Structure formats: structure tokens, C-alpha cells
């Protein structure tokens, strides 16, 4: 891939976009105008309405005989109370004679059948003669609510009342609330006067009182409002901003036949994909930034005006933007790939719209109250980002959630980009023809080796399987650990080898490397832990992680024999993880060169351990094992080193005398001298393994090596 060509394509795409008024409007003008107009305008409107309605005299009608003092209190509280307005004579007579009883109280919210019962009671009330009589008065706005006073109580008894109101009309709803508050006040007055007459202590009848106070800090409170809407809006914008450009630059170019002009220039498909992808991602990110800025400024301005706590700072918004980057890449790559399938622009819109809806709809779920990020959602594309943004805004995003969300989103984005690159290699599609699913995904090709894209797809599959597999199944940890290794890690690898009819030994580098690399592996395996311990000094993991690790190593279980622990936590990972990360994945990266293949596979190895705190130590181990694999062209030294490394960790924690030494000396990590000695041994092991390189490549050159 040539950078100058990618740059030329990128700049040309950007230039075209910037000359397209539709995109510019959508990207910049719309967000800058829309939010202030919508949010400030609407909140002004609402404020005015509230002000008006607060100042407005509430019109109510009182049916029945009002107890002394109630009408004065209502008048003082700005109620315009008409007595017996619109009450038909016969009905009034019936009410006075006590023919109507109080309505039943609605059931408790705790009641499991509350909804059903409430609905039945509503139906019953709707045919009540009093309700029938009140309905036209309230609906015709002659009154906002009717207060029914049931007779039949003595002076010291309980006065039953009912408020009849219209739940659809706002004025009526408000009056119901105000009336309720006025009646509460009236009740207090009555109780006080009863206490006085009876000579009871003040508060005797109230018995208890309480007030509630919010513990949420200002930042959390002010973030909450934004957090409901912002994630969905941002994802929707990210999905739609790149949408037009992606369809235009693929289906549009096909329609105008400019795609074939581009293809007959000396340009590689991958350069076209990357150039176009980068331009779409740029446009989308600009749109996202404009939206975040406009929405942020509007909200902050609004909350300042309404003096509702402090505003969110730029750092929160910046974080939100960063989180949005991988999801932007995902949608850009996806639209780019889908656009190619379309014959023309219109066809492209038709094809890409369902995909856009699919990305946006799950994100809409995040607007529901109570939906929060958890370990299950971090792997759901788009939803994870929406939930993370929500958590960031209320200040409760945990580092592990951020890490896992970013990692999984980046993985999805990479998959989408690989898909786009694959689509752009299909000339039939680019020149207006059709392609089969089989052809597109290369199922028809008889490949004899694993490609880096296949390895990456395998990595993502295992990652998702591991995640959901281990959280969904509830079996004893001793079996779970072994099942995870063999079914979720090794299983997919073997299945892929079987389905693609790949040669097992060559694909997974199962060959004897000679004694020298194996000796090197022993040295690496025994010392890597001591080296990795250095990284713990930089980023000390929380106690919960250490506990979790102990659980994984089954050290909290005295009933499990040590041999099983060694098998499950040391030998099995040594075999299964090595076959995946070195045999399958690093083997496929071999063409990318030593540095890239070792670092990339070590990185994926570290990411798969799903914790930001374990990232560095695991990465170090991965680098060392990757080195062994590169030089020995065999997966066996890695297996040995990996198993020894894990076995040593098990030994350190499970052998009482060693554990006691650590506890007694309050050691969180190994002493520095140990780490330094470890480095020396590890380095010697790596050197020893690399010395064996010449013999390994000689074998290959002679044509008897399995990789030949």
C-alpha cells in the first residue's frame, strides 16, 4: 500500500464532499442550529407554559357539602371553586343522601397484579354516575377538576373526598396535583386543631415525618439529563453522516462509471478502500465533533440558565468523542462495503438503510431508564458504545468497561474494514456485476493456509465465545476452566482446520524444534513471571482482580487436588492458547515479518485476557513466546514456556511455605533482584532459542520442514 496514493484518493474524496452542500449542511450547519433551537426553544416554551400555568387560577368545582375552612383554604391557594356547578339535581340529592360510597383505593405498586386490578377499577369507575356527570364539565374545560365530598362522617370522623380530573389535559393534571397538596395542607390543619382540642402533644397524630435528599454529586446530576439522549443522538449522527458519502463514493461512482476509470489507473484495491474509508471516517468524525460541541454547549448553557448544578467539563465530552471513534470506523467500513453491492445511488440507499437501522435501533435501547453497561453488553456492537457514553456522562465508567468496549469495538471495526477490503477485491462487484456469497467470502477457494484476515476473524470469534460462554454457563469452576480451554479456544481452531481442509501439522506448526529451543523455552517459562512482575509495579491491579485470579486458579478450593489445578490452569492453557495464538494466529502473520507478527499476536494474546491490568504482563509473556515461535517455527517451545509460567504462578500461591513468605513480607510483587535475575535468565533463554534458527531454516530449505 502506497501512502501517496491513499492520500491522493483521500484528499480527492474530501474535496468532493466539502463541495457537496447536502453533506456540509448535515455535518455542520444542522447540528449547530438544531440543538440550540430544539433544546433551548423547547425548554423556554415549557418554562413559559409552567409559569403561565402556575400563575393561572385553577378552576374547580366542589360537589357536596364542604367542611368548614376548606373553601377559604382553596381560595387562599388561588383556586376558583364553584359549588355544585353542573351537578344535576337528582344526582346532587343522591350524593347528599349518602347513596354513593368512596371509590376503592388503587392497589399497591408492590401487588403483582396491580396493573390488571387498576385497569379493572378504572373500567368500573368510568360508568359511575358521578364520573359520567363530571366528564363533560372537565372535557369541555368548564372546570379543571371536580372535588367530590362524600357525606356521612361525624365531626371527628374521616371526610371522604374524590378528585375527578382529565389525565390527558395538562391543566387538569396540574390542578389535580395542586388540589392534592391543598387537601394535604387542610388535613394537617384539621389534625392540629384536633390535637389542640384534645390537649394532645403536637405531632401526636402525624406520628412520623421524613425528607429525602439526593446523594448524587452535581456532575452526575447534570450528566444524567445529557446521558439519556446524547448516546443515541451521537450514534445516529455517526451512522447517518457517513451514510450518504459512503453510498455516493461507491454506488454513485459505479453509476457514473468513474469507478472503472479509477480501476484502470495503477492503483491497488486496498489503496482505494483505505483512501475512501479514511475520508468517510473523517467526515463522520467531524460531524460527531460538531454534534458533541453543539449539544454540549447547549446543555451547559441551559443548565447554567436554569442554575441546575455544575456543567459537564470538556474532558467528559472529549472522552465521549474518543469512544465514538471505533464505532465511526465500524459504520464507515460497513457502508462502504455495502455501497459496492448497489447498482446505483438509489439502490445503495435501499441496501444501506436497513443496516443503518440495525445499528441505530439497539442504541435506542440505551435511552430507556435503568439500562446500564454490564459485562454482557460490552461485546454488543454500537450498544456497548452507547452505554459507555451514558456511563461516562454520569461519571461511572470503570476502566475495565472502557477497555473492553474499546477493544471489542475496534475488533468489529477491523472486521468491517476487512470485509470492505474483500468486497473491493471483487472486480465483478466494482464493475457493476454481481457476486455470490460463496465467491465473496472465498468459500469456493481451496486455500492451503490461514490468512491474517482469517486469523483475525478466528480471534474475534473466540473472544466473543469466551466471553458469553463463560458468563452464561454455570458449572463448577474446575470443569468450566478445562471446558473453556478445550471447547471455546481449541475447538474453533480445530473446527476451522477441519472445515477448510487445512493440513493440521503445518497450519498449527506441530513439529519437533530440536532441544535447543526447548531448553530456551524452559528458561523463559521459569523466568517470564519474574519479569512480568515488574509491570505490576507500574499498574497495580485492584484486589478484586487478584481474588478473581485466585478463583480462576482454584486456590480458594481445598477440595480440588493440586494435580487437577496444574492440568486446568497450567497444562491446558499451554496447549490450547498456544495452538490458537501462536499456531493459528502468529503462523498466519509470518508474511508480515518478525516484528509485526510477534507484536501483533502478543497484543491479541494480551487483549484476550480481558483486563487492562493484566495487559502488560501477558503482553510480555506473549512477546517472549512469540519470539520462541518465530525462531523455532514450532508451537512446542511456546507450549512448554506457557505451561511452566502458569505452573510457577500456581506453585507460588498454592505452596504454603512460599505463600507465607510473601504474606509475611507483605510483598505485592517479587523483589526487584528476583525480577532482574529473571530478566537475565529469560534473555538467555531467548538467545538460546534464536541460536537454533539456522538449523530450523536449514531444515526448511532442504525441503523436509513442515512449513515448506
Amino acid at each position: 500500500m502506497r501512502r501517496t496514493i491513499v492520500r491522493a484518493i483521500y484528499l480527492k474524496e474530501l474535496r468532493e464532499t466539502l463541495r457537496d452542500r447536502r453533506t456540509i449542511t448535515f455535518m455542520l450547519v444542522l447540528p449547530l442550529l438544531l440543538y440550540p433551537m430544539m433544546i433551548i426553544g423547547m425548554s423556554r416554551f415549557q418554562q413559559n407554559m409552567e409559569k403561565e400555568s402556575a400563575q393561572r387560577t385553577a378552576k374547580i368545582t366542589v360537589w357536596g357539602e364542604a367542611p368548614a375552612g376548606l373553601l377559604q383554604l382553596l381560595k387562599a391557594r388561588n383556586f376558583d371553586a364553584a359549588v355544585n356547578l353542573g351537578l344535576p339535581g337528582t344526582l346532587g340529592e343522591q350524593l347528599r343522601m349518602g347513596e354513593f360510597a368512596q371509590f376503592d383505593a388503587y392497589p399497591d405498586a408492590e401487588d403483582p397484579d396491580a396493573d390488571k386490578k387498576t385497569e379493572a377499577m378504572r373500567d368500573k369507575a368510568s360508568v359511575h354516575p358521578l364520573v359520567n356527570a363530571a366528564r363533560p364539565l372537565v372535557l369541555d374545560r368548564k372546570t379543571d377538576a371536580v372535588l367530590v365530598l362524600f357525606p356521612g362522617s361525624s365531626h371527628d370522623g374521616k371526610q371522604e373526598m374524590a378528585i375527578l380530573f382529565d389525565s390527558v389535559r395538562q391543566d387538569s393534571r396540574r390542578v389535580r396535583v395542586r388540589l392534592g397538596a391543598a387537601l394535604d395542607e387542610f388535613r394537617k390543619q384539621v389534625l392540629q386543631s384536633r390535637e389542640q382540642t384534645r390537649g394532645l402533644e403536637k405531632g401526636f397524630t402525624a406520628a412520623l415525618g421524613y425528607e429525602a435528599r439526593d446523594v448524587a454529586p452535581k456532575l452526575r446530576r447534570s450528566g444524567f439529563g445529557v446521558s439519556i439522549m446524547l448516546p443515541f443522538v451521537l450514534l445516529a449522527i455517526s451512522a447517518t453522516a457517513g451514510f450518504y458519502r459512503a453510498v455516493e463514493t461507491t454506488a454513485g461512482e459505479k453509476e457514473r462509471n468513474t469507478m472503472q476509470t479509477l480501476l484502470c489507473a495503477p492503483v491497488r484495491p486496498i489503496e482505494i478502500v483505505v483512501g475512501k474509508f479514511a475520508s468517510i471516517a473523517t467526515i463522520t468524525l467531524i460531524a460527531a465533533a460538531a454534534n458533541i460541541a453543539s449539544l454540549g454547549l447547549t446543555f451547559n448553557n441551559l443548565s447554567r440558565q436554569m442554575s441546575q448544578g455544575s456543567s459537564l467539563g470538556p474532558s467528559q465530552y472529549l472522552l465521549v468523542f474518543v469512544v465514538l471513534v471505533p464505532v465511526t470506523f465500524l459504520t464507515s467500513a460497513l457502508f462502504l462495503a455495502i455501497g459496492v453491492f448497489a447498482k446505483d445511488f438509489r439502490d445503495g440507499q435501499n441496501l444501506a438503510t436497513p443496516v443503518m437501522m440495525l445499528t441505530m435501533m439497539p442504541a435506542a435501547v440505551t435511552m430507556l431508564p435503568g439500562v446500564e453497561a454490564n459485562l454482557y453488553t460490552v461485546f454488543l456492537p454500537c450498544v456497548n458504545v452507547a452505554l459507555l457514553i451514558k456511563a461516562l456522562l454520569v461519571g461511572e465508567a470503570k476502566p475495565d468497561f472502557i477497555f473492553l468496549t474499546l477493544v471489542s469495538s475496534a475488533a468489529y471495526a477491523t472486521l468491517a474494514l476487512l470485509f470492505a477490503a474483500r468486497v473491493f477485491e471483487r472486480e465483478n462487484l466494482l464493475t457493476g456485476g454481481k457476486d455470490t456469497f460463496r465467491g465473496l467470502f472465498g468459500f469456493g477457494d481451496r486455500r492451503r493456509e490461514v490468512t491474517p484476515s482469517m486469523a483475525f476473524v478466528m480471534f474475534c470469534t473466540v473472544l466473543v465465545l469466551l466471553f458469553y460462554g463463560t458468563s452464561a454457563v454455570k458449572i463448577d469452576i474446575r470443569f468450566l476452566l478445562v471446558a473453556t480451554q478445550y471447547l471455546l479456544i481449541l475447538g474453533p481452531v480445530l473446527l476451522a482446520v477441519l472445515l477448510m481442509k487445512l493440513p493440521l501439522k503445518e497450519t498449527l506448526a506441530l513439529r519437533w524444534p530440536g532441544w535447543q529451543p526447548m531448553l530456551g523455552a524452559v528458561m523463559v517459562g521459569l523466568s517470564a513471571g519474574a519479569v512480568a512482575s515488574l509491570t505490576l509495579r507500574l499498574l497495580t491491579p485492584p484486589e478484586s482482580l487478584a481474588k478473581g485470579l485466585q478463583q480462576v486458579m482454584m486456590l480458594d478450593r481445598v477440595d480440588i487436588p493440586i494435580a487437577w489445578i496444574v492440568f486446568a490452569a497450567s497444562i491446558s492453557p499451554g496447549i490450547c492458547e498456544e495452538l490458537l495464538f501462536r499456531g493459528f494466529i502468529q503462523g498466519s502473520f509470518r508474511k508480515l515479518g518478525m516484528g509485526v507478527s510477534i507484536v501483533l499476536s502478543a497484543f491479541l494474546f494480551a487483549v484476550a485476557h480481558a483486563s487492562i491490568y493484566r495487559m502488560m504482563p501477558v503482553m510480555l509473556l506473549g512477546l517472549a513466546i512469540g519470539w520462541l515461535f518465530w525462531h523455532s517455527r514450532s508451537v512446542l517451545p511456546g507450549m512448554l514456556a506457557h505451561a511452566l509460567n502458569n505452573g510457577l504462578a500456581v506453585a507460588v500461591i498454592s505452596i504454603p511455605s512460599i505463600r507465607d513468605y510473601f504474606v509475611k513480607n507483605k510483598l505485592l510483587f517479587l523483589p526487584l533482584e528476583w525480577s532482574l535475575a529473571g530478566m537475565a535468565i529469560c534473555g538467555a533463554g531467548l538467545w538460546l532459542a534464536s541460536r537454533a534458527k539456522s538449523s530450523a531454516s536449514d531444515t526448511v530449505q532442504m525441503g523436509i520442514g513442515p512449513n515448506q
Partner: protein
Amino acid sequence: MTNGVRLACDGLVKHFGAVKAVDGISFEVHSGEIVGLLGPNGAGKTTVLRMLAGILTPDAGEVRACGFDMKTSPLEAKRQIGFLSGDTQLYMRLTPREVLLYFGELFEMPAAQRKQRAAELIGSLDMQSFADRPCETLSAGQKQRANIARAFLHNPEILILDEPTTALDILSGRFIVDAIRAQRDSGKAVLFSTHIMSEAEYLCDRIVMIHQGRKAEEGAQAEIIGRSGAHNLTDAFLRAIGE
């Protein structure tokens, strides 16, 4: 390399699904000649030209441009070719000059050289009046001139032109035809497809006729007319395709 083979294809085959669109086509184009590719609609002309330009990969057979194999050295091979088709449009929001500079970059021409070459072509193809207007405002003839300039830009040894005068009026069509002749005279190898017989008669040194994906006839105009016993190229063409 005077009169040497510039463009050669051998045994080209291309399927679209179950349909065999091109079936074993072979021919050569030499420097300083215009070869006309004639055939009725659906004969496979466009598919052959796209394979020659490196836009489509043949299922079998090979293409060589100035000795470079399209399969093994596609970038080198494509550098030798200028491709133009009648229905190709331009980037509507760019100006012709910008289009030329963009393709100059794709052909990895140094900045100064591509500017100079663009100016040169704008002058020689009489494009000064519209070179800096967005392509969406240009007439069909103006657009095709800009397209021609784009195909000539990197001064390729081979020109592959797929019905370049389609949808053009007589004046614009003649302008393009003259430009093609000028290229031939300067030693370029030109492969030209058309269904306008008069244009083929006027332009082509040699003719390759294809029908239903196969080569039906090949030779100089006079030879083809002589072999078919017809009086003109149109009749010879009709006989060759069995009408």
C-alpha cells in the same frame, strides 16, 4: 520498438455466472496503428476491452501491455494504458483540471510534471474555456474532451477506447476521432471499439470482429472486404456474423 507489438492478448476467456461472455479471443495491437474492435451489442467487446485495461481479470488467457503481464505486474501494465469509454462520466464536483491533477497523482507523476502536462493537454484539446468549471456544468462534448485528456495524461503507449464517440454530436465526435488519429501518428497503439461503421472505415488500420464472444474475422479492411466478397465494411461485418 517501432511497429512492435504493444498490446497483446492470448486466449482470453471470461464467464459471468453460467454465461461465457468471452471465449478464447487473441489478437495484437502494434505501435502506430489503430485496431478497430467491431461486434454487435452483447458480442463481448466491452468485456474484452475491460480485461485488456486490467479492470476485469480473465478466467483464462493472458494480457500483455508493452511486455508487462497484467496478471503478475498489473501496476506496470496499467501505467502503459490510457482507457476511455463512451459512458464514463467525470467527478461532478471537480473541475477538469482537478481531475487531471488527481489522476496525475495516481499515476505517480511529480507535482510539477502533472501541472505542466495538464496545462499542455488543456491547450492542445482546446479546453481553456471550461478547464476550471465544475464538471457538472459541462456539455457532453466538453466532458468527453476532459475524459480524453485524462486518458492521454500519462502519455501512455497504448490507448484503449470503448465507443468513445457515443452520445456525441458530429462536431465533437470528429474532434475526438482526429485526436485519436493524431495519437496513432505519434506512434501510439490504439484499440478502438465502435458500432459506427463509417467511423471504423475512416479510422482503423486493422479490424477485429467478434461475435458471441468469439473472434469472427481479423485483418486489414481491404482484406476483410475481399475475403467476404462484400462491397463495403458494413456488408462484410454482416456476413462475418452470419446475418
